[in-house]
């Protein structure tokens, strides 16, 4: 397993942990108001580049860059679709004059969740492409 694949798996584990914690905090009434705090786990993503830092030789080459670009394109495509759906669905459900009331923490939840989805899709695409080339 190459360093980039290990980093992708690390990022996937961190983001999934954040989402699971968010779900748990939301499910428990006592912790529901502060559920957004679960996304603090995403700070660990800063350590992604520390994974495999002690590996010798080339860590990132042209193939890794190519796979990274494909993964980022896929992540952008997914989040773009979700953004459009997120804007269109309320419009069609509530109508042009509809009013949607949300918690003040909803915006930060959406932003963190969107970032998490980008990381998840990117990591999954990278892992799939690396496994495909390793195993066929």
């Amino acid at each position, binding site marked *: 397993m190459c*360093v980039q694949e290990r980093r992708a798996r690390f990022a996937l584990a961190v983001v999934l942990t954040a989402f699971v914690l968010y779900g748990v905090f939301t499910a428990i009434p006592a912790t529901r108001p502060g559920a957004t705090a679960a996304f603090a786990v995403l700070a660990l993503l800063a350590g992604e580049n520390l994974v495999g830092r002690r590996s010798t030789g080339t860590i990132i080459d*042209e*193939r*890794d860059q190519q796979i990274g670009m494909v993964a980022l394109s896929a992540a952008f495509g997914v989040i773009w679709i979700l953004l459009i759906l997120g804007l269109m669905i309320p419009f069609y459900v509530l109508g042009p004059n509809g009013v949607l009331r949300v918690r003040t923490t909803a915006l930060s939840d959406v932003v963190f969740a969107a970032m998490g989805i980008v990381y998840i899709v990117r990591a999954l695409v990278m892992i799939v492409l690396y496994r495909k*080339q*390793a195993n*066929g």
Partner: protein
Amino acid sequence: MADGVLTNHIRRLRFDHDEMTQQELADKVRVTRQTIIAIEAGKYKPALVLGMRIAKFFGVPVEDVFELNDEVPA
């Protein structure tokens, strides 16, 4: 990323060069071992620069390392 159009003889060239390992070749051409594995298995088509770097390292023309199995109209 690979479709059988481009085949290569890197494994044979490695063995002909004192049974060089994939890691040793990867270090010489500045890529990861997994990239060499993917190239040899035909699952990844290297960029021109990497292909020429491999050929230059083995001291053979690029055509002796990679083979294009594709019908090109005259």
